[in-house]
């Protein structure tokens, strides 16, 4: 075989003064990087296999390990940089579509970081959330155009609402893309926090029906695991049209990952590829989408809100308007930073638009058309912290989905190799040896901690603005000022530049 020109991306440093030869790194690396050399009586490293997931570093009991970027440099070139050269080399040797995982990692502008929040000073009092009640409870679903109240009570029944204790939910991640233990961690945490987790397109495992009250069940183009009991199980149903990481592209769960449990949950034969087509084969127009929305409403006696998730693309505002008019009760916008268990690299990095711009455009459009109350707006795609959540709410979102952030809480180190199925943290894998590395009890605790921490921070920031209910911040873009943005960008975001 001709020589490979792919050199290791990482350099593993092993401090021999600290290495006790316990071989924990050897047992923990599913990529086979660390190997015990009997002749040399020491652990050696196959660095070309390292993905920089930090499993060995975290588990090394004496902190003898360190992983660095490989020092090998290409001749400096601002155009043909290392990324460009490596991509071509890989394809010249493999001849395939370049695959990657998790969200877009390119240095695109991060609008969250170019938006700054307001606070109260002198003329209006700020609120101390430790002394006064702060309301961040959120209701998702269609709101009536007007309400009639008699004797202090609503005269007409509200359309079905999803009640969540904070404006944060766990994004759709299927059992198949992630492990059953990761799924269980999300479900348990959603129950503990009083929010929602989302099955993704992989169906609902029989162990997880008990979390139905805190579950959004998804119906995607592959219709995996969709049956009457499944639709009944959740508190809401989500139709997945698109995904931020790979707009316009379907999904492919390779047959080797389809074992007994996934086979039963997805209702596909063991070992067969589970392929989600790029489009829903029964949806080629807004009218078709309306049919599916109402079919699902009929199937669940109009008792559950129906959500539609689209990825943020160029005409997102017009599409969103159509989706809301088609009858969606919740509209989810997934931006270009959204994660995935596997996507073609070029699609992930080049298709779609930033969540922030899409959110602002959609909220503005729905308001202009007078239909903003017809659907709640949920944003997804790279929400990293509570400040991003607050900014999203102020731009017009009702709630946020977190996917990548939730996985990081579970132990993900963003090595972006989910598609290999060898996740050393037991999150994005179906290998039973690796899956058991994620203890759902610990996972749920870590997720609960994260959600509680963000909720505290949201209350703190709200208090600083002198606002005691999240409802008063929704779409309140005066609470945001832009820095380093062009006039046009400020206009799209509907915000003033800092100083004005």
């Amino acid at each position, binding site marked *: 075989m001709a020589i490979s020109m792919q050199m290791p991306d990482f350099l593993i440093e092993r401090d021999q*003064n*600290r290495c*006790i*030869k*316990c*071989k*924990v790194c050897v*047992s*923990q690396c599913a990529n086979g990087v660390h190997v015990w050399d009997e002749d040399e009586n020491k652990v050696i490293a196959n660095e070309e296999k390292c993905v920089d997931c930090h499993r060995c570093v975290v*588990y090394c*009991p*004496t902190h003898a390990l360190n992983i660095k970027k490989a020092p090998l440099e290409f001749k400096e070139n601002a155009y043909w940089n290392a990324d460009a050269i490596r991509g071509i080399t890989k394809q010249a040797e493999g001849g395939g579509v370049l695959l990657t995982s998790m969200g877009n990692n390119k240095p695109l502008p991060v609008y969250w970081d170019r938006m700054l929040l307001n606070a109260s000073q002198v003329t209006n009092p700020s609120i101390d959330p430790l002394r006064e009640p702060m309301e961040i409870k959120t209701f998702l679903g269609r709101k009536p155009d007007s309400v009639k109240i008699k004797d202090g009570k609503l005269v007409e029944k509200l359309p079905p609402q999803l009640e969540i204790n904070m404006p944060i939910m766990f994004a759709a991640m299927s059992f198949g893309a992630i492990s059953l233990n990761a799924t269980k961690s999300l479900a348990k945490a959603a129950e503990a926090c009083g929010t929602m987790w989302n099955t993704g397109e992989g169906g609902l495992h029989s162990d997880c029906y008990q979390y139905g009250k805190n579950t959004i069940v998804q119906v995607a183009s592959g219709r995996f695991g969709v049956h009457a009991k499944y639709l009944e199980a959740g508190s809401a149903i989500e139709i997945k049209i698109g995904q931020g990481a790979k707009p316009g592209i379907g999904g492919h769960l390779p047959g080797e990952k389809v074992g007994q449990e996934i086979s039963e949950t997805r209702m596909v034969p063991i070992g067969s590829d589970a392929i989600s087509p790029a489009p829903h084969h029964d949806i080629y127009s807004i009218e078709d989408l309306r049919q599916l929305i109402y079919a699902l409403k009929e199937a669940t006696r109009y008792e559950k809100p129906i959500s539609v998730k689209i990825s943020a693309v160029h005409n997102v505002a017009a599409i969103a308007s159509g989706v809301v008019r088609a009858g969606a009760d919740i509209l989810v916008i997934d931006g270009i930073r959204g994660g995935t268990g596997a996507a073609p690299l070029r699609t992930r990095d080049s298709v779609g638009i930033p969540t922030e711009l899409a959110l602002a455009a959609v909220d503005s459009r729905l308001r202009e058309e007078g239909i903003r109350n017809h659907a709640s707006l949920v944003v997804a795609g790279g929400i990293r912290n509570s400040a991003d959540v607050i900014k999203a709410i102020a731009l017009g979102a009702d709630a946020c989905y977190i996917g990548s952030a939730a996985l990081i809480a579970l132990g993900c180190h963003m090595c972006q190799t989910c598609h290999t199925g060898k996740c050393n943290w*037991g999150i994005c894998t179906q*290998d*039973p*040896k690796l899956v*058991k*590395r*994620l*203890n759902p*009890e*610990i996972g749920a605790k870590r997720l609960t901690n994260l959600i509680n921490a963000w909720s505290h921070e949201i209350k703190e920031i709200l208090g600083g603005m002198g606002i005691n209910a999240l409802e008063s911040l929704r779409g309140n873009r005066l609470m945001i000022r832009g820095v380093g943005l062009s006039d046009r960008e400020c206009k799209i975001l509907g915000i003033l530049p800092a100083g004005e």
Partner: protein
Amino acid sequence: MKRVYAKEEVCAGCKLCEVYCATAHSEYPNSIIKAFLKQETKPVARILVEGNQSLTFALQCRHCEDANCTKACITGAMHKDPETGIVINDESRCVGCWTCILACPYGAIKRNENGRKVASKCDLCSDSGEIPICVQKCPNEALVFMEVSEGGK
């Protein structure tokens, strides 16, 4: 009595319990590096991770009610503490005949031939009076220290 139970469904098979156990029972109980690199002989762990493919779990002395090893011991070194119920090997009396190893149905007793030959087994870290080190340090909480009546299997 409280015993250590393994939750095999979340055991990552990392063997960190072995590292911490060996250290805790070494000449340098507070330093892994010193225990493994400075001590003249290799420290011996009293817990052993058994594994086959995806099945892994840590095993140590079960501190049996009616312990075979205590009956097999020819010097009376291996004894059950009447108060705590912990099966302990009094190394000063152990002659390293390995009869206890033959008698143990779990294979939980090891040979320690680093110095004078003695049988080496889990003492539930009874000197420390705390939760056994393997339970404290298990990174995935796959070891629990509890009464049988609390749900241990």
